[in-house]
């Protein structure tokens, strides 16, 4: 098992290297930070811009290959992911951004998965009954609702709760209140900031899992092996719980690989609306700011998260499905 996971990790490492390198070449040949420098007042001369960029390791006169070698050398020898056109170090900001994103998403990722799968099972067991229709219709509705509107509605709801109570219970934006006392007050502040985005992302996030789990379970509810289990003397519900559920979870487990990276790197709406400056927002901004090194770093991060998701999915699949276990 360990050997298998190590082997997979090795393959993913090669993949990450390839996507990141390809991303670097794409960024270096299409992003031109010098253009933005021209908007500064007083306007710098091209020589001044080139000189300042040369100091940051962003020499516009070198060709793509030379810059790639220089950039890669920095990472391999000093773990230095380069600098932004404004002089900031990528490494310095990166860790903070990752931490913000992780804090923002981790709870809702776990909640979404648990609630989505549970509701999928619940609705499949009650196919076409009232509860199923409500849950499944809700999931389809959420699918067509654009995320910014959905999050905005939750913010409005939180604000109206605050107004009804007459006291500020929830923060609808931001990570924390500056200058709060550590200990209990800090914790209350954290929860107050955390509740609204997590709630919003969870209730608008489980739809995919719910629909998938319901569908896969329904595919298996009338499977021959469930009939066999019933013929042994299990009730219908026991047979479904024990036999159909685990089989139907196999494809859902595989899909986790593709949803986790999507949430992390595609969560810029949530980060922007709730004002949590995380990595998703950073990657979008970096493209606007023609920032080659940040764009590449966020891409590399996305690849790593994808690889982790894929390994998790492999692990989950081998756990539930003996047919893929390696001898």
């Amino acid at each position, binding site marked *: 098992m360990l050997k298998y996971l190590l*082997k997979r990790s090795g*393959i993913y490492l090669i993949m990450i290297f390839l996507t990141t390198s390809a991303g670097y070449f794409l960024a270096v040949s299409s992003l031109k930070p010098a253009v933005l420098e021209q908007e500064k007042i007083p306007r710098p001369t091209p020589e001044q811009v080139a000189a300042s960029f040369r100091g940051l390791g962003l020499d516009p006169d070198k060709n793509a290959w030379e810059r790639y070698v220089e950039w890669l050398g920095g990472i391999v020898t000093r773990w230095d992911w380069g600098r932004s056109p404004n002089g900031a170090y990528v490494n310095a900001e990166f860790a903070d951004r990752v931490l913000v994103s992780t804090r923002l998403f981790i709870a809702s990722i776990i909640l979404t998965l648990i609630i989505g799968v549970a509701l999928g099972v619940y609705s499949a067991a009650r196919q076409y009954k009232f509860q199923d229709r409500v849950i499944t219709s809700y999931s389809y509705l959420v699918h067509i609702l654009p995320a910014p509107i959905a999050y905005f509605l939750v913010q409005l709801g939180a604000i109206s709760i605050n107004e009804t109570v007459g006291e500020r219970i929830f923060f609808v934006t931001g990570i924390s209140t500056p200058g709060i006392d550590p200990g209990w007050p800090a914790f209350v502040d954290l929860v107050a900031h955390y509740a609204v985005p997590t709630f919003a992302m969870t209730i608008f996030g489980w739809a995919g899992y719910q629909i998938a789990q319901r569908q896969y379970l329904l595919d298996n509810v009338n*499977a*021959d*092996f469930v*009939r*066999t*289990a*019933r*013929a*042994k*003397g*299990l*009730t*219908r519900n026991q047979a479904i719980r*024990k*036999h159909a559920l*685990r*089989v139907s979870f*196999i494809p859902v487990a595989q899909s986790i690989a593709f949803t986790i990276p999507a949430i992390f790197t595609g969560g810029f709406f949530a980060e922007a609306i709730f004002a949590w400056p995380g990595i998703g927002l950073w990657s979008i901004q970096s493209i606007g700011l023609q920032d080659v090194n940040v764009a590449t770093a966020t891409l590399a991060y996305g690849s790593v998260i994808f690889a982790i998701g894929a390994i998790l999915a492999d692990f989950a699949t081998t756990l*539930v*499905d*003996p*047919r893929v276990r390696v001898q």
Partner: protein
Amino acid sequence: MSTNISQNPAERLRDAGLYAPGEAVLSVRDLNVRFNSENGVVHAVRGVDFDLMPGKTLGIVGESGSGKSVTSMAIMGLLPETADITGSVRYKGKELLGLSDKAMCKHRGSDIAMVFQDPLSSLTPVYTVGTQIIEALTVHNPNMGKQAKEARAVELLRMVGIPSPKDRLKAFPHEFSGGMRQRVMIAIAIANDPRVLIADEPTTALDVTIQAQVLEVLHTAQEETGAAVVMITHDLGVVAGMADDIMVMYAGKPVETGTVEDIYYNPRMPYTLGLLGAVPRVDTATKQSLVPIEGTPPNLALPVNGCSFAARCPMVSDACLHGEPELVSVPGSEAQTLGHKAACIKSDELSGNADAHKIFHAPPKPVSKFDGVERLEREKVLELKDVKKHFPLLKGALIKRRIGTVKAVDGLSFDIREGECVSIVGESGCGKTTTLLEIMEFHPDQVGEVVIGGVSNKVATDHKTKMAMRKEMQMVFQDPTGALDPRFTVYEVLAEPLENLGMPKAAVKKRIMELMKLVGLQPDHVNRFPNQFSGGQRQRIGIARALAVNPKLVVLDEPVSALDVSVQAGVINLLDKLRAELGLSYLMVAHDLSVVRHISDRVAVMYLGKIVETGDVDDVFDNPRHPYTRALLSAIPVPDPELERTRERIILQGDLPSPLDAPKGCNFATRCPVFAALPAAKQEKCLTLEPPLAPEKEGTQDFACFFPDGELDADMLVVHA
């Protein structure tokens, strides 16, 4: 008695309880099942009555859609909640219908157990077989200790003949072959010593040799547990040797019931008679046509007026169309529940030796212009010379390593002459289909030579020669539904090959009308889509498509295995007729040896990519020399109860070995009943030398065995006394 229309249902049910024999373990009375479908209410089961005595076996025989499986599921309480079930099902006098799912669970698996058709999908893939057997024990014996359950599971696996049962407990279903999984299913079913065991087509999905093994296991299971068995099947051969009583179902209703002897030797319902005549026999060489039953079963979403079989019955008269005939005792049989009964107003006319061929107007056996010509004087239409197809077996994710070779086809040579039918038989995995694919491939790079109509694959490199070859040879596929494009009308299906040849439009139209008539379809149906035809008609369309370009050779890949028995006979007769009229040659692949015997002139028995015996079909079937052929033939059940009960059969041990570990000498040595009984000195010869395919004396079949007359191993011989 219980189907008396004049009584109201409540009275009938009360009577049912009163009249049911006291000792019956299972009494079914007036069982009706209706399903709501988009096309209205389908009345799938229309009044089934039977009593099952302890230790006895009841065979329920019928075609697909006759309601036999629905009946068994209704007894088990496994039909969907939406099904409307009325009547009475009593287990030892206790009413089971109307019990809640939970209450029913006390009986399911302990009193009444079931074995299902498809062993591949009937076991949960994510649990070990041990877990699944133990689960059946846990449900009904919550107080049983863990070790006791494990010991019982091992005992059960041993009982159903799974080698090293203790280790196999921890194996997952995908590590078992189909036959082994069906054994596990039987083990689960008999885990709690049920009084009633329902087997729904338990061997339909299996190879004949494996079928013989599984039937043997079922027999043992019944002996061990003393359970009464309900055996549901479409195969009249399978139940002939096992059943005590038979119930023939048609259109949701029993149309004839009685002891096996009554049904097989003295059928009193035209449908039964037709069914018996529609099955070719593997043990006789009589070359007469099969009994075709024209038409299709009625649509059960519509009310049935008159006899449900009337539309297909050759003896139909006006009286048959008014009022559905009751199941009444046949004169002369004892008036008891298990007496011989038939639902036919003309059952008297069928007494004595009714000839199905005469009644059903079976066509005479067609005679081909080639029949009189000596085989060697006819031209060769297809010749294979040492054709080989080896697949490399690779391992590794990025860099593939070759870890072995699968010899799917390993040095095949045979020829087909004008006007003859050659069949290739063998278990699945023996290379039959690969052989067909190699012939269809027709490429110079193939190993070995394929000569079709005088053109060799080694010479034919240009497109034109290949096109000419394709015109000589056409193919009919196994699944008629899958092989026809659902969006093409029949006209388009048939026009395609003709247009490909560049035939003008008017000629295409004329040819299509000819083809429709030729295969027995109405020419004005050409604008219909395939889904508007029945399975048998679709296969006729497939045959018409193959014949469109006037080929000399038609390759038939399991042409009737997807069809019901009564429909199958019509298609076989058609193939027979076409061969004679058009002077066609057939190359057929089939697993049903009775069909092979009926239709073929020559046969080649394949085992692990090699022909082990080949020759005239009557020589090979009447006097098989290779032990594998003997075992294969002995595995086929014959629709003759007397013979089935007394004949000695060879039950091969194990499955077809993986082509990877094919033995060095004779391929068959690992399973051979003769080899097992040989002294070690002679065994050595089988293990080191490969027996050549040669005849024993001039003019008989070729076979590849050193010891064709060797004693058979006693362990592999079974006689039911």
